[in-house]
């Protein structure tokens, strides 16, 4: 350092005489700051107000992405042609963060006019009094008779007042995706009962060839899938018995957990203990899995990866009692926010999207179950095997729907964060299925009792 000093001072003294050097950084810095300032300010103007009698409504898509964003933009263009006085501002929100985005917007102000929402977080929005009940508007528009009853039922059960806060657009169902080619090579039929399921996945496993009969979702999202398997196996028709006690640790449910855990590492890859849906879908698409339990949502992924001739889906098998019990998936739909100043325009948008034509286009593209009953006659639905069979299972009068208690504020935390690690312990053999189910049931019973106290008294 000492040796450098004279050199530096010398250098700077020379520049000093020129009188340029030290002015340059200042000028340059100011110029850059000003330039970026102007550029950013140019982006800062907000175009929410529209002149010449036109209204602008903001719509937040709860699952923005490469498939849905272009689809929504097309439908919005149709809407604007039909309603030239309304301009729709589309904002796609990534699915993983939409709940946080809504919660922040509700807490701090700044909700949109219309938003996409599913029943998994609808309860929270209703509890924060952020949404507008839509019953009257729905019946005035004559939509009430056209909505799939079980979807509307799921939505009503989310709130304590039983009102319709969301107009459903599509439903989803847990299914078993299976490899048609592997099943026909082994001369097997897709599993219709749980006994068939367990024998099939065992027959289709060849660990030497890195071929597995099944894949377990052990990571994020595991518990909801496990619940649908449990109730589908046991045939129990309610999450709570008449005294408000959870049915989760019923011996039949525990038996299913034991059987699934027994498949781990035997008929499934070892890495399954950490599987979230992306890994599971990637594994299935990679060709090493014969049967995967997921929902209709991965339809496009599966068909793209394996080809439509190699992959198909069946609803979860019927229960040991012979009854088909279904735990419905969250229902996707549209909501109007209470803070909106343009509720009529917002409703027009929802009404338009709930019509047969739009609902048909929407569900045909995303591969989900249309919420408008008029769509069920469409020809595309007959050709899309997974959706057709799922709708058939839902529509079947013999099918019993077991509503998951989305209305419990603790439900999300229990199923997503608290029970997940415990299920991994069951898979790894450090916790028994009985202990797991007992803990789970206690948590659910407590949450239910708290809820009954709050609502009832």
């Amino acid at each position, binding site marked *: 350092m000492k040796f450098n000093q004279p050199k*530096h*001072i010398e250098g700077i003294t020379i520049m000093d005489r020129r009188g340029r050097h030290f002015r340059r950084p200042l000028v340059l810095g100011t110029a850059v700051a000003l330039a970026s300032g102007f550029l950013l300010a140019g*982006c*800062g103007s907000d175009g929410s107000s529209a002149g010449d009698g036109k209204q602008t409504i903001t719509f937040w898509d*709860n699952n923005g*992405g490469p498939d849905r964003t272009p689809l929504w933009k097309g439908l919005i263009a149709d809407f604007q042609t039909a309603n030239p006085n309304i301009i729709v501002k589309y904002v796609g929100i990534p*699915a993983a963060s939409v709940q946080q985005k809504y919660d922040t917007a509700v807490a701090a102000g700044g909700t949109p006019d219309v938003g996409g929402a599913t029943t998994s977080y609808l309860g929270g929005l209703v509890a924060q009094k952020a949404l507008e009940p839509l019953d009257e508007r729905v019946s005035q528009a004559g939509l009430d008779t056209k909505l799939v009853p079980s979807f509307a039922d799921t939505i009503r059960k989310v709130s304590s007042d039983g009102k319709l806060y969301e107009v459903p657009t599509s439903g989803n169902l847990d299914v078993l995706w299976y490899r048609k080619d592997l099943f026909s090579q082994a001369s097997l039929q897709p599993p219709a009962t749980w006994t068939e399921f367990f024998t099939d996945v065992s027959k289709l496993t060849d660990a030497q060839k890195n071929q597995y009969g099944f894949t377990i979702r052990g990571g994020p999202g595991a518990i909801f899938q496990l619940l649908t398997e449990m109730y589908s196996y046991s045939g129990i028709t309610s999450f709570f018995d008449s005294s408000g006690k959870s049915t989760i640790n019923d011996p039949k449910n525990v038996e299913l957990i034991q059987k699934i855990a027994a498949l781990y590492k035997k008929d499934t890859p070892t890495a399954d203990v950490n599987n979230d849906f992306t890994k599971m879908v990637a594994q299935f698409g990679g060709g090493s899995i014969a049967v995967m339990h997921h929902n209709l949502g991965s339809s496009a*992924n599966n068909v793209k*990866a394996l080809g439509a001739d190699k992959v198909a889906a069946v609803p979860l098998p019927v229960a040991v009692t012979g009854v088909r019990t279904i735990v419905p998936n969250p229902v996707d739909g549209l909501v109007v926010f209470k803070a909106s100043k343009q509720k009529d325009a917002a409703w027009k948008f929802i009404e338009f999207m709930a019509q047969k034509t739009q609902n048909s286009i929407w569900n045909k593209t995303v591969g989900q179950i249309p919420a408008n009953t008029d769509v069920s006659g469409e020809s595309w639905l007959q050709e899309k095997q997974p959706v057709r069979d799922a709708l058939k299972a839902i529509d079947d009068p013999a099918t019993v729907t077991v509503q998951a208690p989305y209305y419990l504020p603790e439900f999300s935390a229990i199923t997503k964060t608290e029970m997940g690690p415990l299920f991994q312990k069951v898979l790894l053999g450090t916790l028994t299925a009985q202990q797991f189910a007992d803990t789970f049931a206690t948590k659910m019973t407590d949450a239910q009792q708290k809820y009954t106290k709050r609502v009832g008294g």
Partner: protein
Amino acid sequence: MSSDLHSEPGVSPQAGAPTPRPETESEDRRHSLRPRRSRRRSRRWSLNPRNRPEVIGPLVLYLLFTLVPFYWMLVFAFRPTGSTAILPTHLTLEHFRTVWTGLGFGVFFRNSLLVGVATLVVVSVFALSGGYALARYGFRGRKLFLLALLCTQFIPGAMMLIPLFEIFRQLHLVNNLWALVIAETTFQLPLSLILMSGFIRNIPIDLEEAAWVDGCSRFRGFLAIVLPLLRPALVAVGSFAFIGSWNNFLFALMFMSDQSKFTIPVGLSYTLGEFDVDFGALAAGGVVAAVPVVLVFAVVQRYLVTGLSAGAVKG
């Protein structure tokens, strides 16, 4: 061993380098890439203790660990959907088209760049002035202030979300990219100030005093003497600010509510749907997001190593 390296003919330390730089990996590589490759040169290469297998081996292993994920990202980005080829034999730009035009990465990229550059400028200016004050002036509560700066690092951004949102709404800055610059600067500044004051403290005050004797004012002395010596420090602080803001997802998603105001991280999370994942688009988006950061590092890493080690020595 270092003297051995420096006495090598034709490899003189760069003329005009402000401070003797510690030898870095990149310097080594630069030597090895000299065009003249005589036998003597290669013999020296093998004799150099740094090039022994026990040194090279772990480095190669480490590189494998860091580069294989990048390779996977590139393979997924360039191979067609449905392909399982490990070597990309048939290349496609389909995924890049999806993210750039379909998802609007073109707009997100521009926004990220604007916010990143503005954050860089604002953080650098504040860090320079604040760091200088902390290093050169003794004032009451200075230690407490430094401690407070450190403490701010313990507060996660998510906790400040609603208060910040409230503040920006009052200031009419919600849905304005300036909100991101301000929020990002606030979170970056404490560490930058601490780093910068460390750098400035390392520059002997004698240098400035000499300038004052020559007739410079304090400000002019700072610009003429201290600032040129702070180049590595500015590069370190500036690149941290840029990269931090480039990667921030939470603020961009929460404070912006307009498709044309989102940034690259928000665009990236679009590819992870609720039920489906577009791996090709995810990887292509990853490439688009990583390229500027890699470029920034490629350009500044020489200064960065010097800058970090210089700032780490507290006087």
